[in-house]
């Protein structure tokens, strides 16, 4: 079972095992992720997009509301790489400005959903019994509220505010996350390693943090990568109804919905914003898949 060669190493300090920190799951995950080329590509694309979004005001030649009515909707050219829209605004500029809104909504709203959903779901699943029943009935009630009415109510009470948009979307998206996590935790809670943790004397919070949440990461990551594009489209829907951001500001969702209207005459107005969203979606999916595998120590080691 134990090879004698390894046991010769009697001085514990002398072992090279770099095992001082508790966060080894994450460090191991990072090592594994680095071996996954597609995931790294996805990560690279996402980082590039985020940097581009942040630097937009400095890297764009045109302003996002700078119109050139003489030009009208023109196809891609040397001056306007991705063409212009019906008002003669540079499409590349608008996509870049749009990415600031879309990515921010996507990430912040999803992060809100993730934070609330995972904690809420884990607590409900771990506590079980009446606490669980009460917590999940509350989720059911929120589910039953029509989404539009919920958002409009928020807007009426707190006024129109881009931060509120993030919060509102996040506040709706966490419901599904909570349900997924709760289901996972319920089955994990039956496992002996949780009992073992209790018998060591760990408190509920330590068990949730150290034993339960890390084991729910697989489905959570998959659902997260699905939520981000979902949220981006939700934003355009709200903006379309006049509840989100207002023209002349832009977001990918808005650009796409304008693009759809003029699809037959000016197809590039749909294609390029659509492409931007698709690339993000692909990148996120590869990254999410890679992360899920990387965070599961049982996944085959190469």
């Amino acid at each position, binding site marked *: 079972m134990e090879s004698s060669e390894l046991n010769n190493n009697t001085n514990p*300090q002398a072992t090279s095992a770099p095992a001082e920190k508790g966060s080894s799951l994450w460090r191991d995950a990072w090592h594994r992720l680095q071996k996954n080329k597609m995931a790294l590509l996805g990560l690279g694309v996402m980082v590039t997009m985020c940097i581009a979004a942040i630097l937009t005001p400095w890297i764009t030649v045109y302003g996002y509301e700078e119109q050139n009515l003489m030009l009208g909707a023109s196809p891609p050219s040397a001056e306007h790489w991705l063409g212009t829209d019906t008002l003669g605004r540079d499409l590349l500029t608008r996509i870049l400005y749009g990415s600031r809104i879309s990515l921010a909504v996507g990430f912040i709203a999803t992060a809100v959903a993730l934070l609330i959903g995972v904690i809420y779901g884990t607590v409900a699943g771990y506590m079980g019994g009446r606490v669980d029943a009460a917590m999940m009935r509350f989720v059911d009630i929120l589910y039953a509220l029509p989404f539009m009415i919920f958002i409009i109510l928020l807007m009426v009470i707190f006024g129109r505010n881009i931060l509120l948009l993030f919060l509102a979307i996040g506040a709706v998206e966490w419901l599904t996350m909570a349900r997924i996590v709760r289901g996972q935790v319920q089955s994990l809670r039956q496992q002996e390693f949780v009992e073992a943790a209790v018998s060591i004397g760990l*408190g509920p919070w330590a068990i949730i943090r150290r034993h339960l949440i890390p084991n729910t990461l697989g489905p959570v990551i998959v659902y997260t990568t699905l939520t981000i594009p979902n949220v981006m489209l939700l934003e355009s829907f709200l903006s379309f109804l006049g509840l989100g951001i207002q023209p002349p500001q832009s977001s990918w969702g808005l650009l796409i919905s304008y693009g759809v209207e003029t699809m037959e005459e000016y197809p590039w107005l749909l294609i390029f914003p659509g492409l931007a969203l698709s690339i993000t979606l692909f990148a996120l999916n590869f990254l999410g898949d890679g992360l899920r595998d990387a965070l*599961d120590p049982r996944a085959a080691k190469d």
Partner: protein
Amino acid sequence: MSENNKENILSVSDLSICFKTRNGSSKAVDDVSFEVARGETLAIVGESGSGKSVTCYSLLGLIPQPPGVIESGTAQFKTGAEKRDLLSSNKATLRSLLGDKIAVIFQDPMTCLNPYLTIGEQLIEPLCQHKNKTRTQARKRAIELLKEVGIDDAETRFGSYPHEFSGGMRQRVMIAMALITEPELLIADEPTTALDVTIQAQILDLLDDLKKQRNIALIFISHDLSVVANIADRVAVMRAGQIVETGETQQIFKRPQHPYTQQLLASVPSGPKPTQAFQPGPEEQPLLKVEHLKTVFEQGKSGFFAPRPAPTIAVNDVSFELRHHEILGLVGESGSGKSTLGRSVIQLIKPTSGSVQLDGQELTQLSPKQLKPLRQRMQMIFQDPYASLNPRMTVFDALAEPLLYHRIATRKNVTAQVLALMDDVGLAQADIRKYPHEFSGGQRQRIAIGRAIATKPELIIADEPVSALDVTIQAQILDLILRLVEQHNLSMLFISHDLSVVRYIADRVLVMHKGKLIESGDTETLWANPTETYTQALFAAVPQRINEK
């Protein structure tokens, strides 16, 4: 035993199977040859991963291909005047043989029966499929068979669903199902492993009777040598895909030739505890004192509005004492409440009433916060080393957690302590950064034991700590436990259904039946003359080693 007039119904020669994965190919079965005759029981014995199940399943076309590849070999199956090579037969031929001439009994009767169909429906299915019987004819035959395998009131039970049967009854149904087409070859894959020892004895008797009456050939796959000794005519011992030894049962058990067979036989715990160092002072205060402990489970979910069904009493008025430096065995069959008792003692389950005192301190009234410092002094080892370790924590994390949480170690010196602990339980220090799935079952149990002794507890509750392990590994872990108990001056409540294991390790034994403690005493005294009828039945049902017969 196998007289010359008996014809071989199945002869397998030079069978080799390998599994091709992307990490290369591994040989599961390596040049295996054996034969079975009518009216004969061949037992294939081996530890997990030895290829015993793969061998038999390959004959039935039940191994997944890919990744499995049958590299060579023939399996001549003789039925009537016909002779067929099972390995080169096509799927349709195999299907017509399987369930007709060849039948299989699987390990876990619950997962092999469809929960949505009545057992009658499932019983008559092969008759209608293979023998073109009408439903009425098939029903009549099925009821006869149910009676034959010992199911009372067969007409009514015909319409029952699998969950309405107990484990042993379900296995009887499985046997009836296997026999219904009058097969000539019966393959039983660990048919009694999931069953209690008294039920196991009944099922073994039943299989033996049926084999004799019907003159069928039985291939009995098992890891349990004592079971094999009782049922087999011949034994084939498998290790790492090869048959290392074949022979008459008597010969294998009395004069094993191959070193592995000898090791296997030596690993079976037998006889009394090797060291009887423990001599308790009578005046000494017991470490653990349990009085009138009762644990009741509410049935079903307690909803906001739903009325509650009658509760189950899992532990009923149990009192016992555990002295310092003593290993107290707790035996009983599944459902007897022994695990619940263990968990109630260590306050993983809140007992309903009664008292549990650790060194004079009452535990049942304490809040989780008050319990925390006491948790250091009592730990638990669980049955399934695959479930009791967090799959996302390395060995280091798992062992460091209790040390850091109870502030026994600081971040600075925790590594040294973890390494010392790994040394103590016989794990290689270089494995410190590995995850549980990279270890074998025995090594995992070592990690779990290391975690339990990390806080230097006085009391350890071990809930079936070796039941999930192979017999050679089991022997190693038992010796490890005995050594640690000695070294660290531990006291232990050792819960097990395996009587020979308990006899090997325990100083005193408690017998539990239906939630009640029915008998207790010093191990050897109890073994010599059990007083309660249930205890006697329990001991009688233990398959006897052949050399004790």
